[in-house]
């Protein structure tokens, strides 16, 4: 009783000015804290938005291509002087001459070595190859003069897309005044067109930005991911099964568990060095090959898959196991006939997420030589290849202005793949998620 009465005396006057102002202060600081929290989230989201907008803004035009239509004469004496229509002869002919003749015919008043050289740079270095392919496909073209749509060079392409403004002094501009006049003349006739860039999706890498494509890198990525999947999925699932269902509690399993957790946090570049030392220097597997890249990424992805698979297996209730065992199944039959099929959706989700990490990984692949400049589309897992992220890295290093656009375009494609894979994982989870 005395306690209460004494404490009653100590109680403050809750309505006093001091308490009220103190409370106000506290509420203000509460508000500040709240704003700080929202501010943090907002800042993070803004950063994400800036990243995406800057990439899409730079890369959207990579899917467009500037073309120039010229009247090309397929002169017989250039392509096939003997008239044999022999494929080797037609392949070896100088189609560059045809392109140059076509340009000269279009602009007859251009004289002088220098000007001509600039003029010949108007169309891409890939144009002669385009003509060659046309002739090889249809030898009847020889002797005819037809309008052919050729890919413009990267500078003209950049100019057409508005990346090189006209009002900059000529000295600071990669496209000179003369080229602009030619461009305007062609544009007036309607011979300059901007169309969807199919080459970007169908061709391999090139030194010329206007004809460089990502198909080689996509195929390389697919081979690499395939190898990664083939290795890491079965091994990951088997380890998860062992650790969750069979492993006795002892030092060895403890060691394995600690190991898996640590491996998940080892920097990816260290896996690259492991791949370099183990697969290239010891096992002498081919350099730059998706096989080696896939093996290296498999070791890296393994912890992710094991951790996801274990969580999925653990979420299967014991009643399933007890029922199977009660009906006379052996432990392995219980696992392989009941637990594993039921946990498969979760395992697949984890695997897809692991693979999407592997798809975006660059650093370990640099170590095993997948940075080589490769034009050909790889045809097997042992062919030299590059992958999408490495292609992005290579293009990002190139000095040409047009490669900035290509890099951003390739990033958009890569992000598209990642979004697709993650959406797939989410759909799988939503569709097969089961609450026990």
């Amino acid at each position: 009783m005395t306690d209460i009465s004494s404490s009653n005396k100590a109680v403050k006057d809750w309505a006093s000015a001091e308490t009220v102002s103190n409370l106000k202060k506290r509420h203000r600081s509460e508000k500040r804290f709240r704003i700080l929290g929202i501010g943090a989230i907002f800042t993070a989201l803004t950063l994400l938005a800036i990243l995406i907008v800057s990439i899409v803004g730079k890369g959207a035009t990579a899917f467009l291509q500037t073309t120039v239509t010229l009247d090309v004469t397929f002169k017989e004496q250039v392509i096939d002087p003997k008239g044999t229509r022999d494929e080797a002869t037609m392949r070896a002919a100088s189609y560059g001459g045809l392109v140059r003749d076509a340009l000269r015919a279009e602009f007859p008043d251009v004289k002088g070595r220098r000007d001509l050289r600039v003029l010949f740079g108007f169309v891409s270095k890939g144009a002669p190859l385009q003509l060659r392919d046309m002739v090889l496909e249809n030898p009847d073209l020889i002797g005819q003069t037809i309008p052919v749509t050729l890919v413009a060079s990267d500078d003209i392409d950049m100019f057409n897309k508005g990346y090189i403004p006209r009002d900059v002094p000529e000295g600071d501009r990669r496209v000179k005044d003369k080229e602009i006049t030619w461009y305007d003349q062609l544009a007036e006739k309607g011979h300059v067109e901007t169309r969807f860039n199919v080459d970007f999706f169908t061709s391999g890498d090139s030194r010329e930005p206007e004809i460089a494509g990502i198909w080689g890198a996509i195929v390389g990525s697919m081979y690499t991911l395939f190898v990664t999947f083939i290795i890491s999925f079965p091994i990951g699932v088997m380890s998860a099964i062992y650790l969750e269902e069979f492993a006795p509690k002892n030092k060895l399993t403890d060691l394995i568990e600690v190991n898996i957790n640590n491996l998940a946090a080892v920097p990816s570049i260290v896996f690259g060095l492991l791949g370099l030392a183990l697969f290239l220097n010891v096992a002498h597997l081919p350099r730059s090959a998706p096989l080696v890249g896939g093996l290296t990424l498999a070791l890296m992805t393994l912890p992710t898959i094991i951790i996801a698979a274990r969580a999925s297996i653990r979420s299967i209730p014991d009643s399933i196991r007890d029922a199977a065992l009660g009906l006379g199944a052996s432990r392995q039959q219980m696992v392989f006939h009941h637990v594993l099929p039921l946990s498969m959706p979760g395992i697949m989700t984890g695997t897809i997420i692991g693979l999407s990490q592997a798809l975006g990984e660059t650093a370990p692949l640099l170590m095993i030589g997948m940075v080589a400049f490769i034009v050909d589309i790889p045809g097997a897992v042992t062919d030299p290849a590059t992958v999408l992220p490495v292609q992005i890295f290579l293009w990002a290093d190139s000095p040409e202005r047009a490669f900035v656009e290509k890099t951003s375009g390739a990033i958009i494609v890569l992000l598209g793949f990642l979004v697709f894979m993650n959406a797939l994982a989410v759909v799988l989870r939503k569709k097969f998620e089961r609450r026990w």
Partner: protein
Amino acid sequence: MSISPLIIVLLALCAAGYWFGSKKALAINTNRTSRVFSSRPHQYGMYVVAWGAVPSVVLLVLWFVLSITPVGASATFTELVERILFPVVILLAAVGGVFFSFKKIDADLRVRKTLEGVVYGVLILASTLSIFTTIGIVFSLLFETLQFFEKVPLSEFFLGLEWSPQTALRADQVGSSGAFGAIPLFAGTMLITLIAMIVAVPLGLMSAIYMTEYASSRFRATVKPILEILAGIPTVVYGFFAALTVGVFFRDVGTSLGLSVVSESALAAGVVMGMMIIPFISSLSDDIIMAVPQSLRDGSYGLGATRSETVVKVIIPAALPGIVGAILLAVSRAIGETMIVVMAAGFAANLTANPLEAVTTVTVQIVGLLVGDQEFDSAKTLAAFALALVLFAITLVLNVIALVVVRKYREKYD
């Protein structure tokens, strides 16, 4: 004989063994007497497959190991062993295994036990792969590192202030081994990591606090996945963003303020790296704050504390060990991050604490030293392995500490 036809033959053999083994078991099954069958027909098939596959796979591995280990024997002999002996032995082993196990099939043969033993062995083997990976990492780094320290003294590497790994062309040249003082690299790594943490820790932590303590579940459900997109973006994309957008932006801002900022500044790389780590910190601390028991919150509210007072005075102190663990994990990630710094930070080793200048990091140097062709035992390439070993050791220690801290924290509230 190359390996793929051999594997195809083995697979065909196993398939045939499975088919005929199951058939034979079924045939016994139909005219069996009163005897009860111990196993199912397809298990007999698998039994035959196991006998065909296990010995030949063991031999294949042996063949592979032998073909990559150098032996002193003469070339023709090794050739003979590798090209003829092994394929023949492997085929014989497979055929013999299939044949004899096929012969052995009868109702008395208890195959399930054997089969499950084999499966069990395979499972154990699969799960020990992670240990072998770690051993592989340690050994592949350690051997090269030891070779490196034969050429460059330990003290120079860990205490030297100058890093210029360019080796001279001739071995007898004076001072041909370059300078391998790694202090500038460690300092640069630390500077960039510090900048990244200054960006990521407040943003990540505050978002986690807001998400757990203030946000409605709907807000949380929409914003959290969006924030986690940041974690899913490949690092090469961040590198490109840092090099082309952020670096240039900081340089321009610096110029307009009258500061000289290089476009490959530590600041740009650090800020972008911090951006990448935000979701990492926020989702880890999210889990940790969620794990603080509700009773602590209720007690604080009951005493009249506001939400922010509860967060600052009760929840954060209670969750501190876990948050420290999360930050340590984030630091170890930042240290090991490669692509952002390769693309946005410099290659020249600069010993400076000024974030507006270019610095280089351990990972940048590893990439710089190993990309491209060079002979494998020069001090230059070996230095990359030494750096990687240091990197591996540091991240390992950070992880172990973080895991221990987090585990201790979990025990406290379980």
